[in-house]
């Protein structure tokens, strides 16, 4: 206990007090570091061609922006709405996903609206995961999964995707990165509370096949494990591939218990709106709702109304080329193919993604000797920092998306985001073409 006389500044002891008493809670110990911190300042520098952080520099569809402007003009829509999701939004979601799932989804009991897909992941973790639990995470993974599992007091158990051994490296697809079924089975224990899958996957772009999801589903049912399915890129599926929802058969009791997570930001190219949703059986969603009512209570109203309007418009067009869910995928496929060609032209081996808006590429063919940068960081971190500085091109190191044990496996890969304007891709092309000059 300290006794201070108020008003008298005793800076040394105050500093000591600040550091000794006002320390962080145990739950956030070691969770302050973040890969994005190192690289976000890049976004502010207009001379750098930024294929790093995953957000579009293409505009969102006009009707979605209009819907927000219209909502802002309605008085009532500037005040609190229903905590678990604005009624018009959850009803629109119920319609869209009712069609996708092929059965009714209760808008009030089986859906929770959250602050982005991120908020859904957090609500799920806080609602269902705790000390003593294990959560299986497939590498490479969207980086927040591990700190969220740790903040919930649980242990992350990692398993990497591995490149099929009989593949030539010149034309690798994300489909060639697979799980070893025996290895996966070995990760399940009596403590395994959940497995997180991300399909399409960030960063590799893999879309899990029916067979792969069946394997995972069987293990979940055998071990009484929940499935947390992060499907934020669910509409960004390229020709010849299909997005499959592991939670498809709910609410029937024989299917694996799944929380499925989606994102308005990724669906409508409005990452800055930070709206997402969780869909699942009532007896799980109600726990996520409890977390919501004790964390931020409700999401912004006008944004939810605008997303509802956007969904209703596209619901009518579902299955047709004018539907934004389809047209965006078509537009991005062109950019994907262009990006792949640019990389291949300079001798690199991109992993062609089946979905999503990222492409990982093995930079070994560029032959950059970065030993002068020391070896305390994995190669890809050094490469990206060097590339930003020397080539004015930004990407993200793929080891940011894996655990320590897998770093060697992924350290030659960097992730490029291709949901960018043609002019941005042109600029990237120019840099790569002139690499050795």
């Amino acid at each position, binding site marked *: 206990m*300290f006794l201070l006389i108020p008003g008298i500044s005793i800076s040394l002891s105050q500093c000591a007090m*600040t550091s000794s008493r006002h320390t962080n809670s145990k739950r956030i110990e070691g969770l302050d570091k973040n890969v994005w911190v190192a690289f976000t300042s890049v976004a502010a520098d207009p001379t750098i061609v930024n294929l790093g952080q995953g957000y579009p520099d293409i505009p*969102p569809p006009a009707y979605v922006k209009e819907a927000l402007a219209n909502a802002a003009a309605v008085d009532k829509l*500037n005040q609190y709405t229903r905590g678990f999701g604005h009624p018009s939004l959850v009803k629109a979601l119920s319609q869209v996903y009712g069609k996708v799932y092929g059965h009714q989804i209760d808008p009030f009991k089986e859906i929770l609206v959250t602050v982005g897909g991120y908020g859904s992941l957090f609500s799920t973790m806080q609602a269902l995961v705790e000390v003593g639990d294990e959560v299986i995470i497939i590498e490479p993974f969207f980086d927040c999964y591990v700190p969220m599992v740790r903040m919930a007091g649980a242990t992350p158990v990692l398993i990497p995707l591995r490149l099929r051994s009989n593949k030539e490296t010149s034309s690798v697809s994300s489909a060639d990165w697979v799980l070893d079924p025996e290895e996966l089975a070995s990760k399940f224990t009596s403590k395994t509370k959940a497995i997180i899958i991300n399909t399409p996957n960030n960063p590799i772009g893999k879309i899990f096949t029916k067979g792969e999801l069946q394997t995972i589903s069987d293990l979940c049912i055998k*071990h009484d494990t929940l499935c947390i399915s992060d499907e934020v890129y669910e509409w960004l599926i390229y020709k010849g591939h299909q997005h499959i929802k592991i939670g498809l058969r709910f609410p029937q009791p024989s299917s694996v218990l799944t929380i499925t997570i989606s994102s308005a930001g990724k669906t409508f190219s409005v990452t800055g709106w930070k709206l997402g949703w969780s869909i699942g059986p009532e007896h799980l969603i109600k726990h996520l709702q409890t977390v919501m009512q004790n964390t931020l209570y409700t999401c*912004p109203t006008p944004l939810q109304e605008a997303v509802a309007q956007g969904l209703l418009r596209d619901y009518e067009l579902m299955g047709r080329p004018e539907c934004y869910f389809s047209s965006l995928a078509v537009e991005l496929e062109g950019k994907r193919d262009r990006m792949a060609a640019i990389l291949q032209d300079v001798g690199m081996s991109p992993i062609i993604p089946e979905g999503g808006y990222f492409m990982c590429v093995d930079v070994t063919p560029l032959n950059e000797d970065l030993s002068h940068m020391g070896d305390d960081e994995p190669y890809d971190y050094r490469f990206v920092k060097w590339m930003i500085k020397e080539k004015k091109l930004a990407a993200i190191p793929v080891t940011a998306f894996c655990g320590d044990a897998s770093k060697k496996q992924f350290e030659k890969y960097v992730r490029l985001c291709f949901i960018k304007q043609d002019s941005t891709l042109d600029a990237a092309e120019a840099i790569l073409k002139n690499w050795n000059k």
Partner: protein
Amino acid sequence: MGIYRYEQVTIFTCSLCAFNTTGNSGKNNLHARRIEGIDKNIWVDFTQLAADYKVVNLGQGFPDFSPPSYIQEALCKAVNGGCSMHQYTHAFGHPPLVSILAKFFGRVVGHEIDAFEDILVTVGAYQALFCTFQALVDEEDEVIIIEPFFDCYQPMVKMAGGKGVYVPLRPVSSRVEGGKALTSADWVLSSEELASKFNPRTKAIVINTPNNPLGKVYKREELQVIADLCIKHDVVCISDEVYEWLTYDGAKHVKIASLPGMWERTVTIGSGGKSFSATGWKVGWAIGAGPIVKHLKTVHQNSVYHCATAAQEAVAQGFQREYELFGTPESYFLQLPEMLNQKRKKLATCLESVGLQPILPEGGYFMISDISSLKVDLNDPSTQDEPHDYRFVKWLIKEKGLATIPVSAFYSPEHRKDFQNYIRFCFVKEDSTLNAAEDILRKWSDLK
């Protein structure tokens, strides 16, 4: 794009059906222990009830009038701004917003505020509270909460594994006996009682000024007592100041962070929604010394990470305007309390005239009223086991079409039974709403 329905391997799964029907096998309960006991929520219950019965709603605290037009315009402008308005901004706060908040509040508090170190922008003040408790409260830590309190403090402390320690404001008995109309200023803390709540396990104290539901605006001397104890016991002060602009009858809002020795141990929480009458925007902030705010940021980056860009841009524009007009008659932060003061007086007069003794609030959105003198036959069997004020509020909704909130909801489970005779009214409503409430109350009074 097609959706492929995959076939279940029925033989394999059949025998395992039993495991999944309730989801409660193998592992004890599906839900995490941290959410045990915090699933009930008065807003969920009472908002639904108010919607079901089509009432005159003086219950939940949000305006039914429009935000000022310049703020709505600011949002429209942001929406039609460039691409970047619709994509991620800085995680800890959109730079134009944190910059103007630093400038604005630096001037108010008389202490330089670093926009990028000392501020975290959150999804409403609610999320700022959440980040603060999660960042600083561990198992077994005690958090002192002054009653009556905004109801979320208790479950948030619980979810963080902490223990709420409660100390009530009490009406000063001499004033009551003297027959003077009670105001929120007559509700005070006992310094000895407050001091007795501090011990080596006390991590933080939460204060809310102006207070919800009572409307108390803590005076400098009262804050000094709290500050002295915080400094003596090395405790963090969490100061919820969402209603900071709404003070009446000359009451002055004092920021405890501005008292000597308090800047480095206070987290001050504010709300764009309450400041600009746009509660649905959900833009809030926590301001405090960098070493503490950085822990809130860690929670934030592992929970929501970013807040909506366009809403932050619009609030930034709002604050820019208010910075320039501060203290002048055109400032919304002066116009709003002036407008609300009229409504406050109107409602108080109405309540007095029908025998519902109001406690006149010095600040905020709400007024509480003593219902103990009312004799009503609350014969609804569905509310039998509930506190008296809950039963009364539900009766008022169902029988009279008027929605309010029971004040025992703002008390700890241990003290709830001693404060069952008050209900809370929100007066931040159009005059037509207040008139409609008045009609209901008069008709009811005439019947008695």
